[in-house]
């Protein structure tokens, strides 16, 4: 077991990762039927990253996410039922059906939004961290972004600004090896994304993103440093996405069997389950029970999403301004 995580926390982490996986697998299946509108980018395979990081966060800490945001949302505490309705474009969705998959946000739990603009979250999270710093709280801001996004000017500027202002911000580079069909070997001309940290005078750390415990530990250190006034950290999480860039992607750019092999050997849920059941304090039966509960939750969310009403015509014009 882990030194810092008690039994309850381990079960919570498992439930979150399982929920993300179940949610994404279900969206994958339902997208294939043509019923889900728009572009959907799935987080399956990367669960340990969002979960390992967000387990350290309170509702007052903020995260900024990406187009591949479902996992970050669930890990930060956004209600999956509202999320599913949102993805289906329903009035009951987290954003009343106005945002969709790429814009799920819930400020009440510190989730500042998925983002349709690659790199968009970097500057924003500097802002939430700045607000915490100015108010004198210990809250932090976490910006998740991809290997592709690591080449975007906004991300560079945000890391630099966070260092200049010594902000309580953590930059989590989720390096899944691809930006759409482009390999990070092509687009990132240094060995690791974490190697960019010295350019901004901040620590750079690399972790195995299939290993929840590694992520949890490294994130914990970075977040503690930030809370204590030690400034920002760049944390590179190496992982893989199990599905295409978006649903519909044929993935001919990947090596045959690439994903299958990872699923079988390194999958974060598999590893986690093996590890936490090793000493018998947590049993496979308990985890199976969680699996069933999660499945019921997600099944139910789909049933409700399908049945829920679409936004009413009048909704088209509301929610643009607070006052106008």
């Amino acid at each position, binding site marked *: 077991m882990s030194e810092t995580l008690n039994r309850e926390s381990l079960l919570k982490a498992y439930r979150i990762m399982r929920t993300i996986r179940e949610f994404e697998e279900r969206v994958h299946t339902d997208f294939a039927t043509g019923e889900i509108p*728009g572009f959907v980018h799935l987080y399956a395979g990367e669960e340990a990253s969002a979960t390992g990081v967000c387990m350290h966060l309170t509702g007052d800490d903020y995260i900024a996410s990406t187009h591949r945001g479902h996992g970050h949302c669930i890990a930060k505490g956004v209600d999956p039922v509202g999320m599913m309705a949102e993805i289906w474009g329903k009035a009951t969705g987290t954003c009343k059906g*106005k945002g969709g998959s*790429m*814009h799920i946000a819930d400020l009440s739990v510190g989730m500042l939004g998925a983002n349709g603009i690659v790199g968009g979250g970097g500057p924003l999270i500097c802002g939430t961290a700045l607000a915490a710093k100015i108010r004198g709280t210990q809250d932090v801001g976490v910006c998740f972004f991809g290997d592709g996004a690591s*080449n*975007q000017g906004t991300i560079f500027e945000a890391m630099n600004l966070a260092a200049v202002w010594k902000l309580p911000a953590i930059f989590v580079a989720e390096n899944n090896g691809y*930006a759409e*069909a482009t390999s990070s070997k092509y687009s990132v001309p240094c060995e690791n994304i974490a190697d960019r940290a010295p350019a901004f005078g901040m620590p750079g750390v690399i972790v195995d993103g299939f290993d929840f415990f590694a992520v949890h530990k490294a994130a914990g250190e970075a977040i503690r440093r930030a809370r204590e006034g030690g400034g920002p950290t760049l944390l590179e999480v190496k992982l893989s996405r199990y599905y295409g860039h978006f649903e519909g992607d044929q993935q001919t750019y990947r090596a045959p069997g690439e994903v299958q092999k990872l699923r079988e050997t390194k999958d974060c849920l598999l590893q986690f389950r093996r590890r936490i059941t090793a000493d018998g304090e947590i049993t496979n039966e308990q985890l199976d029970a969680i699996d069933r509960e999660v499945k019921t939750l997600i099944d139910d969310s789909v049933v409700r999403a399908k049945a829920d009403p679409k936004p009413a015509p009048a909704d088209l014009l509301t929610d643009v301004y607070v006052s106008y």
Partner: protein
Amino acid sequence: MARKITYQQAINEALDQEMARDPRVIIMGEDNAGGAGAPGEEDAWGGVLGVTKGLFHKYPGRVLDTPISESGYVGAAVGAACNGLRPVAELMFVDFIGVCFDQIYNQAAKFRYMFGGKAETPVVIRAMYGAGFRAAAQHSQCLYNMFTHIPGLKVVVPSNPYDAKGLLIQSIRDNDPVIFLEHKVLYTMEGEVPEESYAIPFGEANVAREGDDVTIVAFGRMVNQALTAAAALQNQGIHCEVIDPRTTSPLDEDTILESVEKTGRLVIVDESTPRCSMASDIAGIVAQKAFGALKAPIEQVTAPHVPVPFSDALEDLYVPSPARIEAAVTRVKEYR
């Protein structure tokens, strides 16, 4: 000319023919080939929706995949244009302009003037625009008004496959910076397109339908909505002239003004939000230059002043529909 191809194929063919004709033409963008550095297929995508597919192997070294750095590579296209190439850079979704606008509007667009006429910047920026894909607020905007506002840019909004090919060829041959906007909903539209290469000059509107009662000026996808409305109105005895300016900058004012001189009634259909839009622009020009001919208020049929919503239920209301166009035409026709 019986061959029919899609709007998307027409764009691909224009790129292909110009690359074959002129070795200075290169293309670049995120996944314009796709698969760079990856273990699997090279040219795995050919653009996010496949528009540039097949060019990578045909023109070795001239199809460049880029990191996600729009300022970087769009600016590089501008710089390369100053140094003798004729680059076509793809911005993927026009909505991404916010991360690279400077290189277009302060650099490319202003070089010639700031440098006293001593620069030429033959760069083309291609981008997808428009609503209809349930792609929500950050992937569905029009934004051609912003480019049209900027002196030094030319702005192209083809409404059909034939125009897409001919206007893209002209864009590449043109010696000024050109913003070439492709409506994503039109990619699958089929139409007759000659196999041979041809260029459609800028600033020459297409009168897509002739009529004496009401002038409709529409842009891009809205030309088709307008034609649908016009066909329906014909049955009610209202004869619409549908004008497709094809380029918003330069703008063929004459064709519009002549039509309004004839009809005295004008409806403008613009998919973008209404403030400072192309709808405003045309209305303003006509209210100044053809005022004497006007017999009715100028109606603007646009999206509302709201971001593009995600849900199909709302997005379908957001985009100007043939029904709304019909209603506007009827109003101006009946105005006394």
